[in-house]
Structures are given as C-alpha cells and as structure tokens.
C-alpha cells in the first residue's frame, strides 16, 4: 500500500511506449506482436480492475475471472442472436457485471479473510459450470463470435482495433484509478484495509464502501472480457476457470499491489515471461512455478521493491510487537 512517487511519470512513459508497439511491430514486419500485446493489455485491464479490490481494499477475490467470462458472453450471446451493436453489448456487459457484482459482493463481503477468498472462488466456479452446461451457447466447446462488436464509428474487427481500444480504455481506467486512489473514497477504501474498525468508528460504512469498490471492479473486469471476446472472436467457459483468477493475482503481485501502474507492468512481465519460458522448454512451468514462489517470497510491493522510495513502508503489522504477549493479549481484548 505504498504511495508510488514514480507513478507520476510512470503513466505517460508507459502508455507512450505501449502506443509505439503497433508501429514498431509494423516496422519489424511482425504484426503478431500487436495480437500478443493486445492480449497483454486486456489482462492488464483486468489486473487494474482487480487492483481496485485486492490492491486498495485488500480483498483477495479469487474469482475475478468470472467477470471476464461474463463480459465475453455478453458479446458472444448477443452476437449469437445476431446483435453485434457494440454499444448494446457494452451496456449489457456493464449491466450484467454490475448486477452480479452487487449480488455476489453482498454475500461475499459478509465474510473476510480465507472465507472471502473461498466464497469468491465458489461463485466463479458456479458460473463456470453454468456456462459449461449451456450447450445452446457451445457449452465447454465455447461460442464462436462471427460478427465483431460494431461501435458505429469503429469495429473491433482485428487485433489492431482491439489493441487501440484496449489501450484507450486502459489509459482511462489508469487515470481514473490514480485519481480515485487519492480521492476521499479511495482513501477510505484503503483505510478499510488497514483498520476497518476505526473506519466504522468514524461513521463510514465499511461494507458499503467495499461493495461499491467490488461492483466497480467487476464492471471494469467485464470490459476486459468484452475486449478479449473480440480479440479471440470467441467466448469460452475456460476464460473464467479458476487458474485465470490465480494468474490475475500473480500479475497484480508481480506489478505491485495498490500501485497505479503496477498491474500493467505485472501483466506485461507475467505474459512475456510465460512466452519466454515457453520458448525455452516444453516444461516451462518448472521455471514459471518457482519464479512465482520467489516473487511471493521477496515482493512486498511487486516491482515497487525494485524502485523503492527512501522511507521504508510500515513494518508488517504483525512483525515487531506481536511477539510480546502483552500485545497479543491486548489485541485479543480489543479486536472484535
């Protein structure tokens, strides 16, 4: 939860670099890179959205792939019925994700810690199995999307279009989150993570704040789903299988929890690494696995620990004093 000083210049630099990708790819005659990075941007978007709940509010949602899936099927199912109007699909995706987010969030936020992790997972699994058994929409074979989303002015017909769409949305979302982080809402949201009891004691409703964040996050993740659907021209239950949720978390942690550009860097790092290791050996998971473990062991703030600012962040709450029984007792007495 460090306030990244470097975030200020990271954003423009990062996005200018990303904007260069298609041209570089053209110049190198490697249009494939556009596709690859389009996919990266889509997952970056999802990671940013997850950051809103996981990074800011410290809510470990292990089922965020659910929203990706919902976004995908919003496109898939509509186009299955011949509706390829992008705006309508967008509206549906947003509406569905918001609604699901509201319901699921209301249930999940009653729990905390491991409970929350598991119940979010449970809901994701439910939707996964639901789509698997919906043979009308291809079941687990997935659903081909023949008509790309048509937004009137532009169509998400090819990788390049999707790339630019993703780039723009990601930029908007990044700026939005950067603002939100410093805004009163953002502050309270982060505060709920550090010390929910105190937040309540100031008369804010921790539940409401977290729910709002969860819904927002769900909707943004849904957008990623919508883009993914167009990128692959396909909607499949495997988009919302639980390993995907896991990978989102990995990206986020690699990049840096609660940082603004972290999720993007994390997504790039993760997918590029994966691509690279795959090139090395067919058993690339033998490398990827330990790498992730190491990351988990060393990183407190993802790549922020490379570019750490002077003053060290807070010592892990449980670190020093908790050793003293006195404190153990006090907290037992005080908490709940």
């Amino acid at each position, binding site marked *: *939860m*460090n*306030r990244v000083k470097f975030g200020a210049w990271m954003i423009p630099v990062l996005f200018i670099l990303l904007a260069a990708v298609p041209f570089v790819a053209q110049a190198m005659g490697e249009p494939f890179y556009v596709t690859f990075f389009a996919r990266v941007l889509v997952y970056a978007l999802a990671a940013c959205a997850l950051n809103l709940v996981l990074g800011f509010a410290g809510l470990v949602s292990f089922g965020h792939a659910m929203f990706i899936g919902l976004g995908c099927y919003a496109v898939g199912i509509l186009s299955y019925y011949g509706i390829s109007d992008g705006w309508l699909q967008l509206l549906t995706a947003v509406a569905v994700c918001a609604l699901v987010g509201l319901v699921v969030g209301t249930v999940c936020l009653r729990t905390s810690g491991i409970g929350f992790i598991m119940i979010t997972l449970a809901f994701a699994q439910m939707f996964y199995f639901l789509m698997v058994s919906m043979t009308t929409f291809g079941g687990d074979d997935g659903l081909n999307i023949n008509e790309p989303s048509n937004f009137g002015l532009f169509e998400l017909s090819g990788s390049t279009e999707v790339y630019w769409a993703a780039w723009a949305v990601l930029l908007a979302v990044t700026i*939005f989150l950067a*603002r*939100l982080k*410093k*805004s*009163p*809402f*953002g*502050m*309270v949201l*982060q*505060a709920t993570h*550090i*010390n929910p*009891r*105190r*937040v*309540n*004691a*100031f*008369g*804010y*409703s921790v539940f409401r*704040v977290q729910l709002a964040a969860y819904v927002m996050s769900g909707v943004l993740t849904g957008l990623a789903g919508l883009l993914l659907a167009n990128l692959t021209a396909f909607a499949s239950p495997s988009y919302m299988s639980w390993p995907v949720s896991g990978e989102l978390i990995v990206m986020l942690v690699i990049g840096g929890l609660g940082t603004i550009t972290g999720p993007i860097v994390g997504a790039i790092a993760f997918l590029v690494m994966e691509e690279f290791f795959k090139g090395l050996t067919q058993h690339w998971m033998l490398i990827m696995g330990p790498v992730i473990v190491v990351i988990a062991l060393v990183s407190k703030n993802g790549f922020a620990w490379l570019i750490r600012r002077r*003053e060290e*962040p*807070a*010592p892990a*709450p449980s670190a020093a004093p908790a050793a003293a029984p006195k404190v153990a007792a*006090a*907290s037992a*007495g*005080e908490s709940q």
Partner: protein
Amino acid sequence: MNAIGLRTQDLVKRFGGLRATDGVTLEIEPGELHAIIGPNGAGKTTLINLLTGELRSDEGSIVLGGEEVSGTPVQQRVGMGLLRSYQITSIFDAFTVVENVCLAALRKKGVRWAVWKPMSSYGEVMEKARAIIAQCHLSDVADTVVSNLAYGQRRQLEVAMALAADPRILLLDEPMAGMSAAEGAAAIELLRSLKGRYTILLIEHDMNAVFSLADRISVLVYGKIVATGSIEEIRNHPEVRRAYLGDDADA
C-alpha cells in the same frame, strides 16, 4: 457544536462466563470532564466499546443526549457526535498524519461519489485538519507517514483524529499511555483547553492527569462502579484506596 450528556442504566456485558461490565449506571453532564479509573481488566475499555456500539450490551440502556441509543449501530451514534480514541493505537499506518486527520474530518461530508477530486483539494477540510494538527503539536510531522512516528506522537494523533471528526462527546481511552512526561504534560494542557467545549469521558491510569483534569471521577472495579465523586471524595474513599489506589496510595 454544543456538548451533549450521556447516561447509562444497569449496563451489562458478558464475555462467556466473565461479566466484563456488571450493571454500570453512570451520569455524565454535558460539558463535564468525567474520568474513569480502575485496575486493568476492570472493564473500562469494554464500557467504551459498549457506549460507541462496537460491542452490543447484553442488558441495560444507554441514553445519549436524551436519546436511547442502545442497540443502534456505530454509524448512528457517530452521527450524533460520539467519538472515541483507542487504547491500542489504531491509526492508518500507510497514510500521512494529514491524511489520517482528514479522513476523520471528512466524516460529516461522507465520501459518496467522491472518487475524482483528490482529498487534498477539499479546502475547508484541509484547513480544519491542519488547525487540529497544530493544536495537537503535530505540525512538524504533518506530512510524515504515521508508521514512522514515535509512539507518543502516535498517541497524540489518536486524539487528534477523534477531535477532527468534530465530536460533541469524546471518549478517550488512556490517551496518555506511553507518552513521555513532556508529551503527557502537553496532552494534559490540550485536554484542559478542550474542557467545557466537549463532554469528555477520560480513562487514564496516570493519576496526575486524572486529578488535575477531572470534574468528577468514577471508579470501576470488576465491571462495577464502586464510587463516583469529586477528586477529594475519591482520594479519600476507603474502598477505592483498597481496590485501586492501594492501601499506601499517597496521591
């Protein structure tokens, strides 16, 4: 911003077998600084948790400014101006002092839809925050991340946050615990300057503070009020001397 009074009637809180609060009846006048002393584990903090609503009382009633509030949620009581500080310092570690105080100061506004403008651009809130920070002698560390504050300063911030949420009645749980003598003295001055403006319920083991600030004192032992009265009455109250001040108390 007028101070309000507080009354409890036969308040009871059980933790499993243990009656942490055992029929507490307490009357606090508006504007009064009322101290509660008592041995560790007497139920002081528990009592505060009951008053704020963070714990649900098992029996008895709590009347806040003439309004029955037992059973109402924390938010509502805060809305009526009931604010507290914590014995176990509970401030927002990752934030700066200003941000901490602002969070408190913002409570009246609420944060619905406040997702775009940075908190620092809320002029009047910032001013208020800065003023209170100055009042609590924290100006020079205003922009430090609080995890880097000294223990005493954290304690001061604890009080500052309670003040910033513009309370009408303050519940302070051992605000001086862990403060150095100097800090303690400053804190005493601060509280004295606040006297009368707010109703204050002060829990403190530091007798100098209590005896130099309190209008009235109640002594809580084993979850029961064994005595309530002026400083003199309490000093010379035999049972209090036995139960808390100790037989050899020469305060």
